[in-house]
């Protein structure tokens, strides 16, 4: 394999892996802060127990999210240095802002929250929980603004062969970002919600101690999951409409739409190879005119198919890669403007499908636990615990679809933007030896796999461990003198 492919595999693996941890951290931190708020307001021990139990799981997960995040930031310079040079003027800014404005807050206040139970007054301690959890959302905002710029570059002019930022405001309020942010955050909440439903549902079904804790957690998770799905559906629709304008090839591929149709029908599922040379061979089950509606809000408009788009792209961005030795075996070769069709087609369906299944399980769990009922069926624990995986799968599929759907571009040309502001992925990669990238790919994958096993083991252990006997924290001791009491929390 060449450096390009290795670097792409590394980016894909590290990104999907990082994004297994991040949504749970975001969703759970907000929910834990909400639980602690209820405890501070009502003084009911149940809410403190909830805070402590879910907080512990949050921390096990948070550690992995942080450490895999550093890789994300550094690999732009390591593996994608040509990209970094090209886009640094605009892409670096939201990334640096994330660190300076959000991540500093997140990590500092998390430390205060974990260790501050006996050092800070109740309300200050609660404020730390909120500072931490809101900062995780701010982090997501800046990162998504950066990613959205790659999907739809705005706020720039083209000078000396590079995009030059002329409006940070345009970059931070990119319509692509404004649609992606609520969608991604809702995805994060559906992960946390399914986690609550799964873990609490299992404990409730076992009829052990602390039924009140499990019931409240499950009901909270169920409602949050359903609400998150509503937001996912609405924002997903907005994103889709934007994508038809901004990245028509991505959407045509997501639909395996070969030829331009008017009105266009929406494909629910396909039988046969969607990437086959002859699209007519593929049987898809269609809903007539629905795609036109999804794309343009009416049932009649034309939607462009892959074949016609290829001609358009070739006219605008060329038929062949430049004959530059930096492009390796792609130098001078024809450009393939169609992203990997099976991945885009099925990725899109898996994203929606798993999201819907996850919400369905939430609804079912709410129904089965209505008015104090305790579910007794044998399949219930399997259902809710299996349900934990569904939004993770949906999120991963969504990201794979988004990122692979924009190939062969790393910076997708903005149809209404400035000429020159786009870049092929093949041009973005660093001048490295394959040995270097193999080393990092293997090392990172191995370490990630090993740590994944450890995290799952610890999660399982702490989930089974259940709720500790919890005492309300002592009055904070704010003196300088070292006390004789043991610390409320210590590693």
């Amino acid at each position, binding site marked *: 394999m060449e450096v390009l492919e290795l670097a792409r595999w590394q980016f894909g693996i590290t990104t999907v892996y990082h994004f297994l941890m991040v949504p749970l951290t975001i969703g759970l931190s907000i929910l834990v802060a909400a639980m602690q708020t209820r405890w501070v307001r009502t003084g009911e021990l149940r809410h403190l127990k909830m805070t402590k139990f879910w907080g512990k799981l949050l921390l096990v997960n948070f550690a992995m999210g942080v450490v895999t995040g550093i890789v994300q930031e550094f690999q732009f310079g390591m593996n994608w240095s040509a990209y970094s040079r090209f886009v640094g003027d605009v892409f670096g800014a939201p990334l640096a802002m994330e660190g300076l404005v959000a991540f500093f807050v997140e990590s500092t206040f998390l430390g205060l929250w974990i260790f501050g139970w006996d050092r800070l007054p109740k309300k200050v301690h609660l404020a730390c929980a909120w500072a931490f959890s809101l900062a995780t959302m701010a982090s997501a905002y800046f990162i998504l603004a950066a990613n959205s710029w790659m999907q739809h570059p705005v706020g720039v002019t083209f000078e000396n062969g590079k995009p030059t930022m002329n409006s940070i405001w345009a970059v931070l309020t990119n319509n692509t970002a404004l649609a992606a942010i609520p969608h991604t955050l809702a995805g994060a909440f559906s992960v946390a919600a399914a986690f609550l439903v799964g873990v609490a549902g299992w404990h409730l079904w076992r009829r052990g101690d602390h039924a009140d804790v499990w019931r409240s957690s499950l009901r909270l998770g169920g409602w949050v999951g359903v609400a998150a799905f509503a937001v996912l559906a609405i924002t997903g629709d907005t994103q889709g409409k934007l994508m038809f304008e901004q990245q028509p090839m991505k959407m045509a591929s997501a639909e395996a739409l070969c030829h331009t149709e008017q009105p266009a029908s929406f494909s629910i599922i396909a039988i046969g190879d969607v990437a086959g040379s002859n699209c007519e061979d593929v049987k898809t089950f269609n809903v007539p005119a629905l795609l036109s509606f999804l794309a343009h809000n009416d049932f009649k408009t034309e939607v462009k198919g892959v074949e016609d788009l290829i001609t358009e792209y070739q006219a605008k961005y060329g038929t062949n890669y430049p004959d530059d030795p930096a492009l390796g075996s792609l130098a001078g070769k024809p450009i393939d403007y169609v992203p990997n069709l099976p991945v885009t087609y099925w990725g899109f369906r898996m994203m929606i499908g798993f999201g819907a299944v996850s919400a369905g399980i939430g609804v079912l769990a709410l129904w089965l636990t209505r008015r104090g009922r305790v579910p007794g069926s044998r399949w219930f624990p399997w259902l809710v615990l299996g349900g934990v995986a569904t939004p993770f799968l949906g999120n991963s599929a969504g990201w794979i679809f988004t990122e692979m759907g924009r190939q062969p571009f790393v910076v997708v040309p903005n149809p209404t933007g400035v000429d020159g502001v786009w870049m092929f992925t093949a041009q973005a990669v660093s001048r*490295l030896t394959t040995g270097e990238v193999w080393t990092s790919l293997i090392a990172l994958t191995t370490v990630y796999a090993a740590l994944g096993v450890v995290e799952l083991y610890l999660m399982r252990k702490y989930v089974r461990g259940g709720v500790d006997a919890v005492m309300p924290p002592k009055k904070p001791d704010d003196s300088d003198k070292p006390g004789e009491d043991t610390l409320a929390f210590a590693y």
Partner: protein
Amino acid sequence: MSLEIAWFVVIAFFWLGYLFLEGFDFGVGMLLPVLGRDNTERRVMVNTIGPVWDGNEVWLIVAGGAMFAAFPAWYAGLFSAAYLPLLLVLLALIGRGVAFEYRGKVDSDRWRRTWDRVIMIGSWIPPLGVGLILATTVLGLPLDAEGNRVGSAFAAIRWDTLLGAVAIAAFSITHGAAFLALKTSGDLRERARTLALRLLPIAMVPVVAFLSVVQWRAGTLWTLLAFGISAVAAVVAWLRLRADRDGQAFAALGVVIAGAAVVMFGSLFPNVLPSTLDTANTLTIEGAASSPYTLTVMTWVAVFGAPAVLIYQGWTYWVFRKRIGTQHIPAVHAP
């Protein structure tokens, strides 16, 4: 001062913040098997940095991010050229970060020993790697006209960059010992203080040697002055430790690293990544910088963001200002 130069200073400041702050928490990790005689003592050590190590690490993330935003060509050139050292740093930081969180999560000696080892290795590699990378950017690399590395994957690994690596690691372990003297009580504190007294003179050998190389090759009069201040501060740190004034000794060590950062980045100025192949290929502040607009935006963010960070991180250190000893460590609790 132009915005480009201001950002060069800001980035030097972020790197200094990183070397100063995570320097001591690396030192604590390095000393874990040396000073921690039993599990309780090791827990005391880990808990001295428990609430702050994560915030300290963000200084690295921000230093990297700020280089990306303000000097993309510097970020791209240095990070791709020093690929393997940087990879090792990342792997070490990954292991170390989860190790703090995980080491107490299972009540088994084997489990704890494993994670202690990860903490120890994960605390040695990053200062060595970051030292090597900073030494590389100061002393230069064989770079072609596009700013790409010429030569093998090991082009960044030379005797002079290795000296930089050893210097930063030596400083970190000493800084960690001084921090432990400041933050612990009882027997552990006495041992930490004694060790810091012994380590300091030894650690200063690679530090002085590396700074001499830098000063000799590219130094100016004012970097020489900073070098002098650094050396005096090292002596002060030793004397203050001997006089039982841990806090002052720790602060003096902070002056040592601040002086060292001035020597390093001052010698680098006005370049950001010199080419040892041809000076025409050298990346300069001017040539590597982002547009004036981007730098203006980033300046506004930094003007409001950076002081806020200093305030709330300072507050964190205040909240957790108490010394801790073995008597404060709660019983192991894992399901």
